[in-house]
């Protein structure tokens, strides 16, 4: 289908990776090197407020390190207010006070050189955004401007990045909309005339029309119905595979991760507690929180009693000392409340932060 006539995009030639080595490259084969698109090192982002002399610090992201390779979908899971959205806002530099970067770095590599996204000046950032780095927002079916037709939204977002004459630009948009199975007629529609699933597909089309190297999708299908959700996700994956971009997919739904992501990171209270290949993390969870998340999921055909987790999610303004999960953890020992556990490799590419299930002494030698 795509071979029949992929639209000749303006930036096709400027992409050194495209077509180079078309073989399926999976995670883990080439660890470092040109294939690493995103590297996050020890990132700390806090919300700092100061009202009437009372200062408050909410440590929404506290020491997160991760990396994403080319052509890989990295999943981020965790409950609400665990810092998932803050983390990706920091990654795409969509930060506003009171959110502040306290430490760490976010480095992208789009093929030619390393870019520290927090060091870029405004016009460099604008050149990177949308063309190399696009962002599907949470609740993005409501991000389209309600008083502008879909066509104008495409012009606003993509025209200056594609740099083609207008008629050609329009043809390109139409053929791109065909990928997400939307008729050209939607270009003339206002957002309210489209159903939720169609609006979501329009935003996916918007975010992918410039064939970005990196897509960040924050809960892209949470507001959609189950039937439409599966459609939208499979389309997202199809486009991602076609343009060979990398993606971070944030959702709390483990079922979505199981079906879509290559690697999965589990966040709890602003920290990454477990990370590995999605199949490993779901089949063989090592952190007690992950174990709970996976075993407590109800499944059709399964009537064994499931339990909720005791206790309440931690307050990030005053997180528990040591491992942040210890007040709710069934395996907690004395060390847990004293010191935060380090991330330890327990298997190839499978990292866990837990004193009990992954004590540092039992770790594999670093690769």
């Amino acid at each position, binding site marked *: 289908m795509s071979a029949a006539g992929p639209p000749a995009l303006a930036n096709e030639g400027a992409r050194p990776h495209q077509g180079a080595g078309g073989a399926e490259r999976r995670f883990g084969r080439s660890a470092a090197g040109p294939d690493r698109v995103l590297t996050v090192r020890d990132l700390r982002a806090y919300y700092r407020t100061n009202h009437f002399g009372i200062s408050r610090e909410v440590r929404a992201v506290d020491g997160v390190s991760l990396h994403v390779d080319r052509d890989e979908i990295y999943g981020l899971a965790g*409950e*609400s207010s665990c810092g998932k959205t803050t983390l990706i806002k920091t990654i795409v530099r969509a930060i506003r006070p009171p959110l502040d970067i306290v430490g760490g770095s976010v480095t992208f590599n789009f093929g030619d050189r390393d870019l520290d996204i927090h060091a870029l000046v405004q016009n460099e950032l604008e050149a990177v955004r949308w063309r190399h780095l696009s962002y599907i927002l949470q609740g993005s079916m409501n991000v389209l401007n309600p008083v502008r037709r879909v066509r104008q939204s495409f012009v606003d977002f993509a025209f200056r990045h594609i740099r083609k004459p207008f008629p050609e630009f329009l043809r390109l948009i139409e053929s791109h909309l065909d990928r997400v*199975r939307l*008729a050209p*007629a*939607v270009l003339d*529609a206002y957002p*309210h*005339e*489209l*159903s*939720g*699933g*169609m609006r979501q597909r329009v935003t996916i089309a918007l975010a992918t029309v410039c064939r970005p190297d990196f897509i960040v999708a924050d809960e892209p299908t949470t507001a959609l*119905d*189950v*039937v*439409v*959700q*599966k*459609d939208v*996700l*499979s*389309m997202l*994956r*199809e486009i991602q595979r076609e343009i060979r971009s990398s993606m971070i997919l944030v959702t*709390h*739904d*483990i*079922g*979505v*991760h*199981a*079906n*879509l992501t290559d690697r999965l990171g589990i966040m709890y209270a602003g920290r990454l507690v477990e990370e590995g290949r*999605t*199949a490993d993390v*779901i*089949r063989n969870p090592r952190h007690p*929180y992950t174990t*709970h*998340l*996976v075993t*407590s*999921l*109800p*499944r*059709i*055909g*399964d*009537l064994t*009693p*499931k*339990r*909720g*987790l005791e206790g*309440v*999610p931690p307050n990030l303004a005053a997180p528990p000392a040591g491992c942040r999960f210890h007040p709710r953890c069934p395996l907690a020992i004395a060390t847990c409340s004293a010191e935060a556990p380090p991330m330890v490799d327990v298997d190839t590419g499978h990292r866990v932060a837990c004193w009990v299930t992954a004590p540092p002494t039992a770790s594999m030698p670093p690769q």
Partner: protein
Amino acid sequence: MSAAGRSPLIEVEHVGMTYAIGGLFRRRAVRAVDDVSFRVEAGSPEILAIIGESGSGKTTLARMILNLATPTDGAIRFLGADLTGVRSNRERTAFMRQVQPIFQNPFEAFNPLKRVDHYLYFSARRFAAARGRADIETRTDKALQQVGLSLAEVKGRFPHELSGGQLQRIAIARALISAPSLIIADEPVSMVDASLRMSIVNLFKTLRDELGVSIVYITHDLATAYYISDRVLIMQRGKAVESGNARAVLDHPQHPYSVLLKNAVLSPDDVDKPIARPGTSRDSADSSPAIAPSNRE
């Protein structure tokens, strides 16, 4: 089937609801609920799950059972009495005492500027006829104990100080104060965190088994419906397309729409199977070239 001479707890008979939308011009009718019938028997508490995607009429149906909306066709009878006959304030209070709602989003169900115990005290005064501070607090505490909380934990707290799971428990406790016989829960766990969701779902089981409350559980989540409900009713565009024993229907769905719904569930067990290519699960209405306005708004 039912015990002779005994009216069912709730009887929904060929109920339909038509909304008129649009202004003076281009007025059109939207059939939100179309000829839906079911009953929940008295005396044998059960959990009935109503499953469907948005726009399928689930919430409209819930509003009609709660007597917040009047059906345009058919009738709903509570213990044999037609709901349209509930007119006076006294009748309405008596009905509300028996049938209580739980809403989807616990953060929106509570006024952020009021302490949560205010709602509990108010319900105790109005529906449980509690008089005097001590009586009100005892009843409130009893209801909170039933959901695994206590008045001491909740007293004087504002909604933002509590987690979604705790707030939803408080919402359930509020519904329990009047000792209802039927609870209508509209997507009660979809806004609750994954780690706390199952404790709320288990709570519904406890309510059924220990307090004898029947529950109409409205959801789009087939997995939790399978886990807790006794019967299911699957709705598509206002029509009930399939109903019956929860295990039987969800293990072997018959209607094409039920099959579609079941196949669309993304299970964590499919971790090695990549997501199905589009086209296999494409739903015809959404992919049609014409711009199909969603029938929801």
